[in-house]
């Protein structure tokens, strides 16, 4: 999906493959509440991939992720008549996805938690890492390395990074979705990006030295 743009307070998404501006979520929800099943299917189709990506990053298992987003969609649509538009529909939906995934992790005993020291912001004030290797950033290989390394990040960081990069959410929206304090979101996001940068740099460095 291409980036969403805010138009008059409503979220309009440009659909990949074809530059058709689809209906905003708000209008579709009105149609759903009026009993239009097609709008319901369309809204699910619009958000299912992003919800699945988020759930996959948190749960690391395809079946569990799909079950979780199924539950999340059902909960969201059952509560739809009570939705108050304090946030956008997608923010609200991803928050439900997060909650369902956290519950699933809790049931498995895998609930991610951090030691207090790990959220310490001071670690970010250290000098940056070694100079990055000289690589072709647009190459498919680079893309694939980045993808691999995001998948390998601990769920806690991968989730925040997914919300920031793939869902293109700002800090405030991530705070709404995850329910974490702003400072924690910032630190975890910076840490996730640093971890990704180090992992990708390491992979590229190894590749370069092998080539030499």
């Amino acid at each position: 999906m291409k980036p969403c743009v805010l138009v008059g307070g409503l979220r309009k998404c440009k659909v990949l493959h074809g530059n058709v501006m689809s209906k905003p979520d708000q209008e579709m929800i009105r149609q759903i509440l009026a009993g239009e099943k097609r709008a319901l299917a369309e809204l699910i189709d619009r958000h299912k991939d992003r919800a699945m990506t988020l759930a996959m990053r948190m749960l690391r298992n395809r079946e569990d992720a799909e079950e979780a987003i199924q539950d999340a969609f059902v909960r969201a649509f059952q509560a739809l008549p009570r939705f108050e538009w304090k946030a956008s529909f997608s923010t609200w939906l991803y928050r439900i996805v997060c909650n369902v995934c956290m519950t699933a992790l809790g049931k498995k005993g895998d609930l991610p938690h951090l030691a207090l020291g790990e959220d310490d912001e001071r670690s970010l004030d250290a000098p940056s890492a070694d100079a990055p290797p000289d690589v072709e950033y647009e190459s498919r290989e680079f893309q694939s390395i980045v993808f691999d390394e995001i998948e390998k990040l601990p769920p806690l960081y991968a989730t925040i990074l997914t919300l920031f990069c793939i869902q293109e959410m700002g800090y405030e929206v991530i705070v709404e979705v995850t329910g974490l304090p702003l400072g924690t979101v910032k630190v975890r996001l910076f840490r996730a990006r640093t971890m990704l940068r180090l992992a990708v740099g390491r992979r590229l460095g190894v590749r370069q030295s092998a080539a030499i």
Partner: protein
Amino acid sequence: MNHLTTREILEFVDGTILDGQRTHVIAHLEVCSRCRSEVEFHRTLVGAARRQPPHAPTRKFTDRVMQRILPKGQRRWIQTIMNNAGGVIAMGIVLAVLGYALLSSNSSASTQPSMITEMVKVCDDLYAKVQEFLKVQATKLESLSPKPRAIGSIKLILLTLLSLVALGAVDRWLIQPRIRARK
């Protein structure tokens, strides 16, 4: 030379850095190639992460969610048919067999066709000859093998109904629970 911190680089990349710090970062980047390439690397990483393909759920995901959301009465009739596909196919086969049996019994009872034109007469003659030949062959075969017992139409209907009930039961208590468990 003191290089930029991770926080400074990331905030600069995101455009969330405060104005006072921005001036300092820009001044540093003008003279430090290492930090410049670091900024570039982080920008590229975010760009690459944003271009990652999303994970897609399985093909029937939307249908399954809709099935759970919509009350039973509102489900599409096609979905109901698809859910009971086994029963529907079996019922179709049974009805086809029954229809074939009834139609063939009617055609055997029909009389010789009466036609006007000569061509049709020729055809009629041929048809009659073929029929006669077949009758003779059938009589010969009947004399060789014991005559099978004919099933009455009431028995046929009863058997059909029984098979339908059995198929319905198999669908309801064996197939449907497995489908639900798989979902």
